[in-house]
């Protein structure tokens, strides 16, 4: 359990990443109001065939991160800084035309609520074929055939008939499959899935996740999985970045993270998951407080007000510096001054010591 496993896609890791996000910041500024730092210096990268999870509570900045990567944030009142590179090409500051040419073709996104994410007045078929017409030069018949094939591929039965139907005539799972089909239409190299299973029944959730996993394996797509659901992370992600209040507070490979969470927040997330194999009557361990009880990162660790391990030096005032994101053993990064310790695991303790 404590043995550090090699990442499953060791070879891919050495390959050039499809997506490199570097010190991404997103600031919402309104006239006469304090600017909000929704994303505050987030860096990560995704290689072909790799699945990276961005995990955190609502409002931690994970969805804003994904919209910033896609260039889908409104222009007005939003400042995006840092760097987002796709295949080495900088996306921030790229022209609207360039971004439109890439979106849907090179990078695609699957959204959270499949009903509201589909146009209610346009048949499913048109919503699939419009991507094909836009990015791939196809005749009408070719596009319809391709759309049928796509719906079939994502597991929609009787695809030819479904093409003519409208979103409200499909079940929730079908709608999410249709959205995935649209995202896959041009075989993108990067797929961002923003909580794709949140609005679905549990049984359907598993099917959709399985579908996404197959896609990654079959086509070598780089997948960014945005979720608050640790079950999704456990089933799908190779590497996990835990976000809190706009910053990454812990990064690790999936196995390491589940085996030995170091950030007390990650530990709290894992502890608050109900377990079927636990004894009856054992109370759940929620993280106290809510995501609103934060202090700005400039004043100290944003999680400190809710943290059981918090001490005086978690505050900038006392420590003299903000809490940095530091190496924490092989393949791990951590933003914490008083992490969870694992006495029976010498690797973790020495690694963190050596990193400093």
């Amino acid at each position, binding site marked *: 359990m404590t043995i550090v496993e090699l990442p499953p896609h060791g070879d891919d890791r050495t390959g050039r990443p499809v997506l490199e996000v570097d010190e991404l910041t997103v600031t919402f500024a309104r006239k006469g109001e304090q600017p909000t730092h929704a994303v505050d210096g987030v860096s990560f990268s995704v290689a072909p065939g790799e699945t990276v999870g961005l995990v955190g509570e609502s409002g931690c900045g994970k969805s804003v991160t994904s919209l910033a990567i896609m260039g889908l944030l409104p222009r007005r009142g939003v400042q995006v800084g840092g760097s987002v590179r796709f295949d080495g090409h900088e996306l921030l500051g790229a022209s609207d035309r360039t971004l439109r040419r890439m979106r*849907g073709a090179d990078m695609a996104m699957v959204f959270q609520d499949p009903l509201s994410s589909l146009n209610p007045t346009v048949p499913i078929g048109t919503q699939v074929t419009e991507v094909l017409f836009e990015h791939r030069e196809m005749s009408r018949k070719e596009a319809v055939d391709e759309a049928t094939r796509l719906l079939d591929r994502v597991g929609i039965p009787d695809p030819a008939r479904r093409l003519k139907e409208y979103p409200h005539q499909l079940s929730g799972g079908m709608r999410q499959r249709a959205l995935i089909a649209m995202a896959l239409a041009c075989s993108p190299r990067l797929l961002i899935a923003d909580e794709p299973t949140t609005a679905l029944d549990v049984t359907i959730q598993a099917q959709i996740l399985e579908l996404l996993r197959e896609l990654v394996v079959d086509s070598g797509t780089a997948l960014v999985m945005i979720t608050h659901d640790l079950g999704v992370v456990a089933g799908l992600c190779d590497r996990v970045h835990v976000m809190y209040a706009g910053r990454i507070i812990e990064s690790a490979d999936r196995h390491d993270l589940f085996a030995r969470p170091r950030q007390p927040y990650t530990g709290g997330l894992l502890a608050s998951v109900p377990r079927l194999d636990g004894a009856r009557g054992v109370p759940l361990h929620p993280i106290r407080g809510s995501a609103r009880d934060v202090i700005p990162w400039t004043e100290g660790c944003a999680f400190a007000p809710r943290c059981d391990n918090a001490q005086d030096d978690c505050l900038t005032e006392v420590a003299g510096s903000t809490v940095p994101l530091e190496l924490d053993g092989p393949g791990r990064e951590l933003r914490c001054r008083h992490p969870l310790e694992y006495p029976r695991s010498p690797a973790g303790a020495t690694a963190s010591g050596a990193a400093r």
Partner: protein
Amino acid sequence: MLRFIVRRLLQLIPILLGLSLLLFAWLRALPGGPAQAALGERATPEAIARYNELFGLDQPLYVQYLRFLGRAVQLDFGNSARTGRAVTEEFFERMPGTIELTLFAMLFAIGVGIPLGYLAARRHGSWLDSTSVIGSLLGVATPVFFLAYLLRLLFAVELGWLPGSGRQEVRIDATRITNFYVLDGLLTREFDAAWDAFLHLVLPGIALGTIPLAIIVRITRASVLDVVNEDYVRTANAKGLATATVRRRHIVRNALLPVSTTIGLQTGLLLSGAVLTETVFAFGGVGSAIFDAIFARDFAVLQGFILMLAVVYVLVNLLVDISYGLLDPRVRVR
């Protein structure tokens, strides 16, 4: 679909029965009465009695009503007490005028209102936005007859750019086929007559179209502002679709759903007669006919016109309901 239409048409029967009963009772309760109006204030009681006997007005009310109903189902509403002509004939002569006027007014309101509302929403907060909001408020707040007078005074009387009264220049000897003057002109290839009839629509049409225009601008603007923040517009952008495709297929199409409701309602209202505008421009439509009939206590015309307008109104609403289904598949009737 067919069943839906038939059911809606059957609903007309109770509506018309109720309306006719109401009309009948209400008109008979008016002071004065047709005899007084026709014969003047100084008519002798004998003359009035003779008049009433002649037109069956001395019979008990229920007899009058049943008699009226029996003829009404054959589209016979009697003759106008004022002109002596058959009510139905007069209606079919005047209704096309009102329909033409309504079409012009609504095309004006739609053609200007939807683009303006869309632009105002997309440039939210700009001078164009605030101007259109204030302008539409003014449009709703300005009394139609006042605007009609103003337009007539300025463009017809002072500047003389456009005709200010009637449906057609008297000296033009146009052939009548359908009583839609513009259409008649086109059908008979008397293009000067068609153009003249069209020019006669401009001023009353603009006066009549102002309120629908203002309402359409406001609703389009609000609706576009809603729709651009919808998830499916984000999806469309995430697919990398061209801006024009996103606008046409994903924004405008959905934004028009509430606008179409308004258009339907407003069209129905205008069709049932724009009394004030038609009077100002002496436009020979149903509105001015009803206006004259009220003054003349012309029961036959009032009953006939109002009942037939009710039918028109219900038919327009049926059309609107059917068109919803074309626009929004979620309410499509089976």
